[in-house]
């Protein structure tokens, strides 16, 4: 089964072609939690890698690599989005399918921008931050 519907593929290709700098995706494999009943025999790690491969195939601006239990990951499978190969702390934990595929594509698009999409007021407020913040956003694919 193809990863993207044809109309989505065209749109994603356009978005990725507009990237201003290269983005690398790091697929992290490791011990996975037991999935919920109903998940069947789905191999979350393999599916995650398949989606990332398909994304990278759409644009020369996007590359990927795969590692086993790399440093800096709390659970698996995971994808790190690395602008110009640099780890700035962006992660997607789990299989980015369904509605959540757009979160991963969105992360790549944002990482590919040289200028922040945030408003100047927001950037000013963030620049004054004097402590570390870990933002976890729980999402579902439907």
């Amino acid at each position: 089964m193809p990863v993207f519907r044809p109309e989505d593929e065209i749109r994603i290709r356009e978005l990725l072609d507009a990237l201003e700098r290269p983005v690398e995706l790091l697929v992290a494999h490791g011990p996975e939690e037991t999935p919920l009943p109903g998940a069947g025999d789905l191999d979350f790690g393999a599916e995650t890698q398949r989606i990332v491969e398909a994304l990278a195939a759409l644009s020369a601006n996007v590359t990927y690599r795969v590692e086993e239990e790399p440093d800096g990951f709390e659970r698996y499978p995971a994808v790190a989005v690395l602008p110009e190969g640099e780890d700035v702390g962006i992660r997607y934990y789990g299989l980015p399918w369904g509605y959540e595929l757009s979160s991963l594509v969105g992360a790549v698009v944002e990482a590919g921008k040289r200028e922040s999409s945030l408003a100047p007021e927001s950037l000013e407020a963030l620049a004054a931050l004097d402590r570390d913040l870990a933002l976890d956003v729980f999402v579902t694919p439907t």
Partner: protein
Amino acid sequence: MLLAYRCALASPRIRAAAIEATEFPQLADEMEVRAVPRIVVNRVPQWDGAVREPVFVERILAPAFE
């Protein structure tokens, strides 16, 4: 989700993770995830639902998280 990613890109002090709740039920349970998106800051559940950028930035920077 994108707001969290944008903040991580804008500040070296911020990291942002999306966590697929159904795939990590134990963690989702610990963070009392009942609705999505649920926003957790420094491992403390904060609020549910999408908010506009100024509100998002204000909330994550609130002194309560110090």
